[in-house]
């Protein structure tokens, strides 16, 4: 007889791993199935920015809690609290900055407006063309490359059974529970959690659930090592630039510029036409970048639904099926929302509400 697990979790990114660990700690028997490697999807290739200034207003309470989790994870994930500046270069951006940061401050983020003079004193290499600036002392970053190593080590020391290089290609369910299939094996469980990141639409389709999920193809680049040029996380009023200098001296440049490709066809591709303006924007903010070289650019898939809020809760009308994903800023929020998800599955009281996956989705342009 094959083992009947309390829960099968599909997807070994932050969401899947953190939920698995939380449930195992509470005594559930858990099997986690990952098609590639633990923490090599979005969770292992993202820009690592833990910046409250780029979090959505409604998600701020989750991001604040997420910050707390990252702080606890500490050195093992390369966590550093550096503080962060967000820059505006013209009137339009200054207005946008003012509007947005005011709302984010009201939502609980420790954001203040500072004079460009203060910025230039603390970050002498930033362009003097900055017109308006906001600052958040809590901003920082973690090293997303270490996500896989971090969670794999925790999983090794937990009761979770995890299998890498095992893609789920078929899911059966009956009133007894679920049977999830790889090409060659099947595993049984009473409950099921989909935590498939950018591949969520395809995974939900295995249960005949059609969700309006799209995958974005975000680009990140890294420079060679350099003497210190910046010491805070740097952002842009539009949210389309993130920049930080890592402890080893390399500078990571992100901002969600779109590459090409889709989750059905491999890993997504860097697109010169968006990479170039991404780097130009970075260089405009930090002119000294001109002395450095980009040594690698890459992409990762990030899923979203039209309202850009998470899918976190019970899936469709299938008993004991759950879904967790599409979390904007999911690196920051992931470790916390996964605990909430675990609590929800365990039937515990929730500290903050989750996001009903069966809601009506309305477009959010802004």
């Amino acid at each position: 007889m094959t083992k009947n697990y309390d829960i099968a979790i599909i997807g070994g990114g932050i969401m899947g791993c953190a939920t698995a660990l939380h449930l195992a700690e509470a005594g559930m028997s858990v099997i986690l199935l990952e098609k590639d490697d633990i923490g090599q999807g979005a969770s292992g290739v993202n820009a690592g920015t833990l910046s409250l200034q780029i979090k959505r207003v409604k998600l701020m309470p989750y991001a604040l809690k997420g910050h707390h989790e990252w702080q606890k994870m500490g050195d093992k994930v390369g966590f550093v609290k550096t503080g962060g500046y967000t820059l505006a270069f013209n009137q339009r951006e200054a207005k946008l900055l003012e509007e947005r940061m005011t709302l984010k401050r009201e939502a609980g983020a420790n954001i203040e407006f500072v004079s460009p003079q203060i910025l230039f004193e603390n970050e002498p290499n930033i362009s003097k063309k900055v017109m308006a600036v906001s600052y958040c002392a809590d901003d920082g970053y973690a090293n997303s490359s270490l996500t896989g190593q971090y969670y794999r080590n925790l999983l090794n020391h937990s009761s979770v059974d995890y299998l890498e290089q095992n893609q789920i290609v078929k899911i059966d369910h009956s009133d007894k529970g679920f049977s999830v299939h790889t090409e060659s094996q099947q595993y049984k469980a009473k409950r099921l959690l989909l935590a498939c990141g950018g591949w969520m639409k395809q995974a939900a389709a295995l249960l005949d659930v059609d969700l309006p999920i799209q995958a974005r193809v975000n680009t990140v680049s890294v420079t060679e090592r350099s003497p210190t040029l910046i010491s805070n996380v740097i952002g842009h009023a539009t949210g389309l630039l993130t920049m930080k200098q890592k402890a080893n001296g390399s500078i990571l440049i992100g901002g969600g510029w779109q590459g090409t490709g889709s989750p059905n066809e491999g890993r997504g591709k860097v697109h010169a036409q968006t990479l170039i303006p991404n780097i130009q924007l970075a260089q405009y903010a930090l002119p000294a970048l001109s002395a450095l070289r980009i040594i690698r650019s890459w992409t990762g898939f990030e899923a979203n639904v039209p309202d850009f809020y998470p899918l976190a809760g019970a899936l469709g009308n299938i008993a004991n099926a759950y879904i967790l994903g599409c979390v904007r800023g999911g690196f920051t929020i992931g470790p916390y929302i996964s605990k909430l998800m675990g609590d929800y599955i365990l039937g515990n009281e929730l500290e903050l509400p989750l996001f009903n996956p069966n809601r009506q989705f309305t477009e959010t342009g802004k």
Partner: protein
Amino acid sequence: MSDFDLIIIGAGAAGSHAALEAAKAGAKILMLDEQAEAGGQVWRAKSPSIISAPKTPETIAGDKLRSDLKSNNILHIANARVWQIEKNNDDLWNIGYLNNGQLHNATCKAIIAATGAQERVIPVVGAQLPGVIGLAAATALFKQHLTIPGKQTIVAGCGPLLIFTAYEILRLGGKITAIVSLNSKTDWAKASINMMARPDLLLRGAGWLAKIAAARTPIYWQSTITEIIGDTHIDSVNISRVDANWSSVSQGRKTNIKADSLCMGHGLNPAIEATKLADATHIYTPELGGWHVKTDDFGRTDKVGLFAAGDNAGIYGAGAAPYRGKLAAIAVLQFLKLANAENTDRLVARMKSAAKFGLATTKLTVLRAGMIKNTQQTAIICRCETVSRQQLEIEISSGALSPNAIKSGTRCGMGPCGGRYCSDVVALINQTISGKTRQQIGLATHRPPLRPLPISAIAQNFDYDDLPIPAPAPL
């Protein structure tokens, strides 16, 4: 509309001959190479500062090739580094390259990747010390600058480059303290049977050996460098005999030899970054240098419009490379409908016959299973990021089995070289722990830029207001 019918990446033996062949049918061709002149590794041009130098068969052939390219009106842009390859919406290839400190972009219907090979070095403790260079890297020094690596040089490793390097150092007036050859005399005797395919080259090789013998250079057959000793620069090396699997059998006994320089190399790996970036299928064939892009005799890959020729499609060697270039050009002309199918049997036969010599020499460099045992726990595997064998073993033992996972956890391969020089060694170490085959282990994801990209080239002459900044992220 595309800018070119064909873009050739690499102007070595394979790329240049592909260009000459394709030009015959009037294809509009662009050939890009990061070197200052066409010729690639074997037919490398001398640095312009060298006025006169003794002629060798390679310099003569190289000079002829360069003049042929000019007279055929082939657009060859030198000092052009290809950093990006993409397929655009019109099903054309988009090639991004860097030239004169500026970014350029060109589109084409077909690509021939002729990017050649790169050196493989299996490191031991001390291999990162100044004074230690690769065997192939040393040959590039001689060919371009006529300089030698030091005053007292040890030459170590396997395959023909070992003998060639030793000979060249002697010819240029240097002193060889020792030749340390993994291959045994019997290996060479066996190889020379297949090398009979090119008696001229075999004879030249014999000439090199005669020169080496005349200089009374000690040769340690079936031996390897086990440690490189020195504080800030190489001072000496320890050598040891190896068994038939190339694993050291010194059992504590050491032969220490003084030297101020060491040229060490263990064969060549196909340079696959470009074809990986273009998403072609690659296969692992030890006898062809390891991972290489999969092609037929005509250089057709499984990607429409992507062709490959030369050592990047398997180390068949310099002799076969021109034929492989021509065959790929013929396939491209058919693909472009610029030529009808012609009888190519003779060309294929010639290519195969020329490849015999190259395959025999590549065979001498196929790594044997015991080789990786000589690499100590403290040996540095990734030089860009200073990652030791021990760090890798801890990561792999914890369950990080894929190249991507190992890279993420240890930074091995995250530096400027992008893992080009260490990925083979990491996979060998992985095998000793996981027992997986090289095919099962696979390769890390290849990402642009193919070469480090100066931000000064990207961020030139742009107007902030013209940046196509998308709509702000949702609030």
